[in-house]
């Protein structure tokens, strides 16, 4: 029971404190890939803690402690309406765990299917409107608004409007398309879908809300960096400015482009990438987030296991 409470307290604390910590971190813009991994690990950490907490309520540590065989027995008993299931705490634990899993699976499926449906509809429309430009390796759509985007999926491709082509120099066009290709290659739409699913499955939880917004931003920085490996940063910056200005009124839904500003500045004044020490501590943090809850959940079980099987060994010590 202690473990269940500890895990639940950790999950609640992490869901509120981790986003604050991560948003305040100054290094994220220098290492977007690591930052994305960190947000994902934080999300996974909280979900896994809740699930393990529910599992710990259902299965007492003393049972786990008697070795793997006993654990499997307990699990088998749980699955096949055995004696363990009759305790109210076991039922509550299983109910919580089941609800969390079901909610995640349902929302995840809805997000993925909805996105795929939208993409298919858009692809159908583009089949009528666009023409494939083999030199650019992108679909060109006759449209005055300056737009460049990618349509992910099995036959994913970059899309650019004639308005954008007119306002950009050729080397800026290739830089923009390299950015979109980076999205496609990195399967960023799946990264975004996962963040979207978590935020929608459990609304108003600070970690999931902010992870969605931050990952959407970081994915852009990552694609900029990928494009900058083969294209001069000045072209990416210039293209960003060209595409971010001169909008058609119908599209002016809001004002103020904080992310666009950050991205242009990053391209013009690149910061040094993380040192290996910083990178290593980042990776350790990701590992701790992922492994921490499991270690916490396993601790009493391992303790009980040691006490049960190794007491003679301990005594001789």
């Amino acid at each position, binding site marked *: 029971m202690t473990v269940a409470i500890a895990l639940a307290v950790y999950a609640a604390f992490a869901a509120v404190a981790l986003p604050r910590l991560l948003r305040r971190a100054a290094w994220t813009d220098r290492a977007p890939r690591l930052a994305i991994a960190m947000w994902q690990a934080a999300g996974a950490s909280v979900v896994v803690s809740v699930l393990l907490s529910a599992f710990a309520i259902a299965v007492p540590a003393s049972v786990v402690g008697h070795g793997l065989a006993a654990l499997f027995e307990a699990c088998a008993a749980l699955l096949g309406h055995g004696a363990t299931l009759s305790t109210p705490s076991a039922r509550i634990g299983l109910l919580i765990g089941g609800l969390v899993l079901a909610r995640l699976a349902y929302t995840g499926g809805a997000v993925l299917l909805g996105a795929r449906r939208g993409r298919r509809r858009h692809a159908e429309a583009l089949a*009528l409107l666009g023409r494939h430009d083999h030199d650019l390796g992108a679909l060109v759509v006759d449209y005055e608004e300056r737009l460049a985007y990618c349509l992910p999926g099995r036959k994913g491709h970059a899309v650019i409007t004639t308005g954008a082509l007119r306002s950009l120099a050729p080397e800026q066009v290739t830089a923009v398309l390299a*950015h979109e290709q980076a999205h496609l290659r990195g399967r960023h739409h799946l990264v975004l879908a996962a963040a979207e699913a978590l935020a929608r499955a459990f609304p108003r939880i600070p970690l999931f809300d902010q992870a969605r917004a931050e990952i959407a931003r970081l994915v852009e920085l990552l694609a900029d960096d990928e494009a900058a490996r083969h294209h001069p940063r000045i072209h990416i910056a210039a293209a960003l400015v060209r595409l971010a200005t001169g909008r058609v009124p*119908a599209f002016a839904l*809001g004002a103020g482009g904080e*992310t666009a500003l950050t991205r242009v500045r990053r391209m013009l004044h690149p910061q040094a990438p993380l040192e290996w020490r910083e990178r290593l501590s980042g990776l350790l943090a990701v590992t701790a987030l992922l492994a921490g809850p499991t270690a916490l959940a396993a601790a009493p079980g391992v303790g009980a296991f040691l006490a049960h099987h190794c007491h003679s060994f301990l005594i001789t010590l």
Partner: protein
Amino acid sequence: MVRGLGELESAIMDRMWATNAPASVRDVLEHLRKDRALAYTTVMTVMDKLHTKGLLKRKPVGRAYIYEAVSSKEAYTADVMRVSLAKSGNRAATFVHFLERLTPEEASALEAALQVYPPSGRSS
């Protein structure tokens, strides 16, 4: 076969948008036959499908239908772009997000930043 039909849809819509006038299946067929062999029923089926999709409207004249594009190509493009890209699922797909367009002040500041950027950096 499906791919071929998709191309035919595109050719028919191009024709309907270009002429911007009502046309019968026979009119469209005669135009398309200039560069490929097509059966009347094929074109009729595809135009019926385009009607179901909401791209063409039609009214009966005699024993056949007279078709017309529902909206101009420009208007349709604007609809497609606005609807599918403004959705939350595609928010992140565009190079610059719609909701994050720059204010004129920000834009001019950035233009200035680009101007003063040292030329040596341009070739880096």
